[in-house]
């Protein structure tokens, strides 16, 4: 069977993704450790967890800036901007494929090509995560890192509580996204195919 190779992931995207993945995993780990810390059994010692979390947060913030600027300046941005028509129908089609079609060896409803790097579900979740959740997560995190700069009261509750609840909820959403993202990356031709793509830059699929 012939293998089709499309170069979809330029070096900067792969580097950005690698740094982002590592830092987000560190943030999740240290975030959970801080939140559920106990004097007897800390997953990571609290002060160390705070230190790692802060450094990783700065790197992710800087990295996020590269992502946004990169998507403005390069062709990679079009994958997030250009939408197929009938979004709801497409989302449903992709969902049904993951739920049923994949087991029946049905063809992908939205095959990957140079114009469409993501299927509708991917694109929808990536846009929500990268352009809605991440900025709010970063802003709320900066608020917690520099508590003197945030409003004392927000919606009649402590500004710190508000920022923290937003940060925790978004952190959880991102954690869930990471879990699903890693799993769906095993849905290529072989479980390791899509991971390989993010290393060599080529999307591969059997024709």
């Amino acid at each position: 069977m012939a293998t089709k190779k499309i170069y979809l992931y330029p070096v900067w995207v792969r580097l950005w993704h690698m740094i982002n993945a590592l830092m987000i995993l560190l943030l999740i780990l240290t975030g959970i450790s801080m939140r559920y810390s106990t004097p007897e059994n800390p997953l990571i010692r609290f002060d160390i967890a705070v230190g790692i979390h802060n450094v990783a947060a700065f790197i992710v913030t800087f990295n996020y800036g590269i992502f946004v600027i990169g998507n403005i300046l390069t062709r990679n941005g079009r994958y997030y901007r250009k939408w197929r028509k009938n979004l709801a129908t497409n989302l449903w089609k992709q969902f049904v494929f993951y739920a049923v079609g994949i087991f029946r060896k049905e063809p992908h409803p939205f095959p990957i090509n140079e114009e469409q790097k993501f299927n509708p579900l991917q694109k929808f979740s990536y846009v929500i995560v990268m352009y809605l959740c991440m900025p709010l997560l970063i802003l709320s995190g900066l608020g917690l890192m520099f508590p003197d700069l945030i409003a004392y009261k927000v919606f009649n509750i402590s500004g710190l509580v508000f920022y923290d609840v937003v940060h925790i909820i978004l952190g959880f959403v991102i954690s869930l996204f990471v879990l699903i993202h890693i799993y769906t990356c095993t849905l290529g031709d072989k479980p390791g195919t899509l991971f390989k793509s993010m290393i060599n830059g080529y999307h591969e699929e059997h024709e």
Partner: protein
Amino acid sequence: MKKIPIPMIAGILLAACIMTFAQIPEADTSRIKSSYYEVNDFVEENENCLKCHGEVKYALEDTLFGRVLTQYMCPADILDRDAFYTGVHRAFSCTDCHSYDYETFPHPLEARLEEMYTCLDCHGYDENFAHYNFEVIQEEFEASIHNIDEFSCWKCHDPHSYRAFIRNSQDIEEAVRYDNNMCLNCHSNFDRFMLLTDREEINLVESHDWLPNQVSHFSSVRCIECHTEINDTILVAHKILPREEAVKKCTECHSRNSRLMQTLYKFEVKEGRKGGFVNGVILNDAYVIGANQNDFLNWISLLVFGLTLVVILFHTVLRIRNNKN
């Protein structure tokens, strides 16, 4: 003309000196506020002291030669009238605690060397004050590193202005500032610090450089949260620990069993949970990572995460079975 012998002149001058009266001018009653009378029956009597000790300067009048000398009052001996009449001892007359000898000026040395009362002299073993448990406070003080020569209750709790802030305040942040200032009065003022110890000057910012977000910590919690041993029988722990025994483990506060609930928020613990938050009473004033978990969010997140894992596992099993077939 017969010359007056020099020893006689000296004698006359000496007698004049002895007979000279240094007198303090009358009190300026314009400094008295009507609110003082609401809490104290000795306001005018107290002015005999406060006309000097309530001012940054005082006038000494030489009644023999009519000369008036203006002098600065020693800052440590100046009292703030407003602070006195809002403090815990606001109803007192100065001579309730100080010797009547102070009514003469210059104050006699015996009066200045008089032994001051301690808290227990008035508050100890008295059922009217039993709920404050002063006896335990004294025991804690005696076991504390503050138990050194010349240290007394008054070094922290100025009887002329002290307010039982944490017990009565609704504003924790203000109470924290008030209480921390008691420590900083000496620990960030070397002039006062060196009166009691030969230790070198402490730079509090440097000695706490391990503590992240110093400003937030210093404005949200009291020094004694970390520098005392918890005692459940008194509201405010008084056993100040040696530096090396101070709490340095973040999770002592940043955890579900936060020690802040046994220290700073001890009086408000009964409020318990607020909107599902563990240690919710802290949320009135601050937010402590680790201590303020929300049980509702905890359960929801566990449920969603668990369900996602189940779906992934189920999907994986189906894929494996499908591939085998």
